[in-house]
């Protein structure tokens, strides 16, 4: 169990490509940190630097109280689960789990004990003599987890471990990973591009983009107060609607003809300054024509999701999506009048994408 600290960590590849541009954060002992971002944002590189599979160009990574920049992966006291599991195809499940311990010179009875224990936790006791190719995707995933557990590491590293599984299994394994991490109390770093995994697993969410950290926080916080337009559109599904607007006074923005209240708007902005207004599809409420702050929404088509419906259409000429519980809005195309809770109006700088909030 240990705290992981990253201090201004950078990665520059030969050829000058900056994959990670100075990242600083720490993960408390036993914390579950998820690095999320689009492909190529540097999240995997960052994880691999913590693992010791990539050299660190500058900055410092420490695990516990020890700086590990120059420490070999095997000596960092970490365990990693790979996207394609990376099980040794020619070894039995038992040997796959025992291999790392054998290399460390762990006594035989201790290896036996730990492997049996891990197999019991993961419900793969009956598979120990099989080869990886005889296992299903979910079972391989468990073996890969088992290989990590038996080492009793300070830190678990997960590199998109669920992306090779089908949707149903992914949800199931997601829950199991979280339970397991809680039960073992091991610090975890988890890389994913799936924002649902990111939201559900993390107690510290790190959103990355272009080699930089966009926002760090509790998942609910990141969802409620996205620090930038990028985070706003990346976290949440369907993504947040972004509409051009302008400042119309303290706490008030204009969106075309309509004037709406935005409680979190910074107060030092000049009237008429252009802004971008973000509205989450699930925050939209139905209003009536003429009601203060109501917006005209022209519905073009409706997507059925079962419990909810997605209304696609145009608002002030811009594409717009609204989500509502099935039956809440009579499903039909045409004009709807909508409104948004002033607490749920997000305003961003159109140039930098930074949130124009009260701080």
């Amino acid at each position, binding site marked *: 169990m240990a705290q992981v600290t990253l201090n201004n960590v950078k990665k520059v590849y030969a050829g000058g490509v900056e994959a990670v541009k100075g990242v600083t954060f720490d993960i408390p002992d036993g914390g579950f940190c998820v690095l999320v971002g689009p492909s190529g944002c540097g999240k995997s590189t960052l994880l691999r630097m913590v693992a*010791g599979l990539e050299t660190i160009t500058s900055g410092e990574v420490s695990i516990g109280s020890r700086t590990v920049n120059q420490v070999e992966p*095997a000596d960092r006291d970490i365990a990693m689960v790979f996207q394609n599991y990376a099980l040794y*195809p*020619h070894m039995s499940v038992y040997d796959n789990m025992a291999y790392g311990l054998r290399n460390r010179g762990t006594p035989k009875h201790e290896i036996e004990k730990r492997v049996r224990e891990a197999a019991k936790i993961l419900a793969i006791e009956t598979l120990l003599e099989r080869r990886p190719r005889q296992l299903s995707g979910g079972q391989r995933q468990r073996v890969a987890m088992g290989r990590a557990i038996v080492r009793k590491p300070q830190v678990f590293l997960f590199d998109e471990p669920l992306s090779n599984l089908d949707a149903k299994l992914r949800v199931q394994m997601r829950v199991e990973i979280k339970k397991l991490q809680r039960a073992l109390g091991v610090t975890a770093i988890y890389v994913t591009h799936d924002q649902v995994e990111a939201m559900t697993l993390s107690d510290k969410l790190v959103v990355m983009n272009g080699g930089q950290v966009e926002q760090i926080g509790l998942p609910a916080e990141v969802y409620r107060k996205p620090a930038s337009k990028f985070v706003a559109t990346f976290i949440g599904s369907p993504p947040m609607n972004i509409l051009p607007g302008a400042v119309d006074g303290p706490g008030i923005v204009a969106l075309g003809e309509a004037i709406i209240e935005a409680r979190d708007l910074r107060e030092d902005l000049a009237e008429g300054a252009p802004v971008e207004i973000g509205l989450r599809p699930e925050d939209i409420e139905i209003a009536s024509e003429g009601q203060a702050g109501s917006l005209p929404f022209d519905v073009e088509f409706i997507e059925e999701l079962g419990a909810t419906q997605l209304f696609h259409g145009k608002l002030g000429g811009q594409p717009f999506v609204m989500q509502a519980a099935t039956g809440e809005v009579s499903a039909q195309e045409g004009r709807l009048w909508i409104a948004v809770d002033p607490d749920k109006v997000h305003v961003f700088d159109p140039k930098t994408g930074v949130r124009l909030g009260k701080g």
Partner: protein
Amino acid sequence: MVEDRRLGDLIAYVILTIGVLIVAFPVWLTFVASTWDASTVINGQMPLYPGPYFFENYNRILFVGTSSTTREPVIGMMFNSFVMAMAIALGKIFISVLSAYAVVYYRFPFRMAAFWIIFITLMLPVEVRIFPTFKIVSDLRMLDTYQGLAVPLIASATGTLLFRQFFMTIPDELLEASKIDGAGPFKFFKDTLLPLSITTIAALFVIQFIYGWNQYLWPLLVTTKDSMQTIVIAIKKMIVTADALTEWQLAMATAMLAMLPPVFVVIAMQRLFVKGLVETEK
């Protein structure tokens, strides 16, 4: 569409059977000739069934030798051929698996240059560089030795290429998982790479063993002593005799014996081969 499958099958079987007969007939004839006495073979009226001299002929050729050209018993030549073929096959596997490992997994300066230099040797088989190679071998006093027979034939790029291509299909994550599991470069090689390469090794072994066993030109050059002759050379020597009758029954028996080891190797390795092909998964 309804096909007459039975007629199709019948035609296929007939054609295949004819093919097998064409291939097998000379082998059968060789075997039959090795079981008659010299006069029956030579007078041109040899029957197509085995004769009564099987044990006599094989006993004579294995442990005594012909009366004229080759002198030494064939068992010794088979031993020479076997040593040479094994040395070439194993030596080549050893060298090429190591060089491919270096080229694929290590980032050293001029790595690609090293690879291309190895690659270029494909254009320089023994036949092309035979004089310089002979000179080197003779300067190193390796004429009439097993080293002299095998070493120059070990050096070639085919094996390296084969292993390089195979290693490049192994996912990098396996290497990374090994690193995290505390396996150094040698342990990764021994515990992961070699077990995964078994089928490739078996394939290379079959090819190289047969290549080594069938060598004619090189052994002819570097061996002068009767005791160092290989069996392939012996067959040729037995047939071309300037001043004596060719002992065809003995030459044919030698040919039969020369065929056996490669056949055994193919049969033995075929099982591993198929097993590997079916089971391989990365």
